[in-house]
């Protein structure tokens, strides 16, 4: 099953390689990984989308927690959360398909961000389902290049992934 894990880490030299190294070293899969600064410049947030059965995902959580630079780990999959991905797509534009491209972009609430005589560059944001659907539809019209950011996610409501709680739910103190 697909899992979305959000992590707060110290914004330090080498943290990304510690996290990604953990995945490769232990044979865990990464579908996407994003990193960026948070409201606190000393802290970065990573969003990792991974696949695995419960046992594997439990190990991923525990092993991530063991990394010294990891402040907080949460698998948000089972919770209410908002997730978004941004994609840029380059499509070849011809006399024939221009209108169709515009129409589809409009339906997906995308935007044309660059226009040249032979190509459109389109920006689409949304859940990964929406992004995949857009790709599927636009593909036959002459897809040239795709760049995706990978997913970012936040819990819904006022819940935050703050560092107040201890790192591990097994914590006895």
């Amino acid at each position, binding site marked *: 099953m697909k899992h979305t894990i959000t992590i707060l*880490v*110290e914004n330090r*030299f*080498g943290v990304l*390689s*510690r996290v990604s*190294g953990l995945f490769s*070293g232990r044979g865990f899969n990464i579908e996407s990984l994003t990193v960026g600064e948070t409201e606190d410049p000393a802290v970065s947030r990573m969003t990792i989308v991974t696949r695995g059965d419960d*046992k594997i995902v*439990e*190990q991923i959580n*525990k*092993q991530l*927690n*063991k990394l*010294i*630079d*990891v*402040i*907080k780990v949460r698998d948000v999959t089972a919770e209410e959360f908002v997730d978004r991905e941004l994609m840029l797509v380059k499509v070849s534009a011809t006399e024939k398909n221009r209108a169709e491209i515009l129409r589809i972009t409009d339906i997906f609430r995308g935007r044309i961000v660059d226009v040249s005589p032979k190509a459109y560059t389109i920006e689409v944001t949304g859940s990964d389902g929406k992004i995949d659907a857009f790709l599927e539809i636009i593909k036959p019209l002459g897809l040239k290049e795709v760049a995706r950011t990978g997913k970012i996610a936040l819990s819904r409501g006022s819940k935050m992934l703050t*560092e107040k709680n*201890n*790192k*591990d739910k*097994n*914590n*006895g*103190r």
Partner: protein
Amino acid sequence: MKLSGAQIFVESLLKEGVDLIFGYPGGAVLPLYDALYKSKLKHLRVRHEQGAVHMADGYSRATGRCGICVVTSGPGATNTVTGIANAYMDSIPLLVFTGQVNVEMIGNDAFQEADIIGITRPCTKHSFLVRDVRDLAKTIKEGLYIATTGKPGPVLIDLPKNVLLATADFSYPKSVSIRSYHPTYEGHPAQIKKAFQAIKSASKPVLYIGGGMITANAGKELYKFAMKTKIPVTTTLMGMGAFPSDNAISLGMLGMHGTYSANMAVHETDLLLALGSRFDDRVTGKLDQFSPSSKVVHVDIDPGSIGKNVSADIPVVGDLLDIMKKLNQHVQKDKTGWKEKHKDWLTQIAEWKKRYPLKYKPAKKDGKIKPQQVIEAIDEFAKDKSPIYSTEVGQAQMWAAQFLSFTEPRTFLSSGGLGTMGFGFPAALGAQAADQKRLVICIAGDGSIQMNIQELATAIENGLNVKVAILNNGTLGMVRQWQEFFHGKRYSSSIMPNYPDFVKLAEAYGAVGLRATKTSEVKSVIKKGLSVNKPVFMEFVCDPSENVFPMVPAGKTVKDMMLA
């Protein structure tokens, strides 16, 4: 007053009460060695950086204090990798300082530059690159804290040369607080209670003890608990010494070369109490048939090791000392008649022990020496001298675990997780350096001893009078055994008849060399070897065809156990 980074290094370690470090100099750490010159911090210069790490490791295992070593950048640093990985697998606290090229040269392929943080990332608990001398003292404090707390492990601190030369005000932090690092020490009372209830309702419980029991210094509590509840105890290789091996309820080691009784007990048990052990594949064999009808209580300080291989019915995260104490409180308040309750179970176990003890065919007086016999003889001579044993890796290691007797924790230093040939001898030196008066004995094969044999010079130079028993079978015995059983007796690269003359070699270094070639000579060599006040190589020319039994082949079950 301003101090240089190198002086800060020395002062910080002195503030921590460090009495001894191991190391080897080189260009990038010249400032550091300058600061060590005539300083109060004792430094033991080795002959190879791998030796330094294993010595620090042996020191750590024997004393419970953090072993520390220093090496130069580039090749010095890369030579430490095996030692670091070895300590990581066995959760041994170590602090490894590596020299590094100047900060601004990092990444330029400078002379003797190696990305040692990158190279060791998967085998360190954590690592630091110190880019500013003002961070050095704090980093040392944090490094030691991380290495020694929670699930211990090696921490690497990379020290660029210009950081060692730069100066800063020195004040050593009194305490550490790392917001993202809070190991759990106290076991959850409800979980402990649940575990105790399970113990009360089990009829065939087994204590399966790993190295975590030794790390937690909880041997005494374990003894109290086991003696009171009359639950039989088996230990892993890493757990040897956690429980007295001659006790009636001791089953010895379990797993691939474990005893029949230990493996049968674990197979038949209805409650497996895994305390500080991690269900390594050398213990479990085929996972889905391991201990098939048991409930599992798994206690570990590392939540990550719980549920990794075998899922636990009752997980308890925390420090084993705390948890054993609490279990003992439960036992104290409880009125169960344990002896009666476990009577049938213990009878069964006694029968297994009696029917299939560890055994081998002793040799005739003028026959080829049986390696097991050597180990038994060493045990006989050393038993009442509270020895510390270290082992190399292979058959000799397994026979040591099987035939030596143990009464105390921290007296069996063996490379468990990584199985590192070349570990035992330097580890023995590390233990000896921690206590020069202690009897320290290394059990080695003729293959393994040659992997760090150069440290004999370190032994001579520093008066580390370790006694090394080399069970010379002229083969890489364990490899040969596998080839005999599983590769059609094709002894590919495992026969090594051109061994050096170990007696002459010892003498060349200024040590004492002794040799036994006949069974009748074994005891006199041991007697003499153990009484000499010098490093000693005792070579026993052994029967090369001897195999380690019992054996549960890799990935198999107790049903496939091969017996002697």
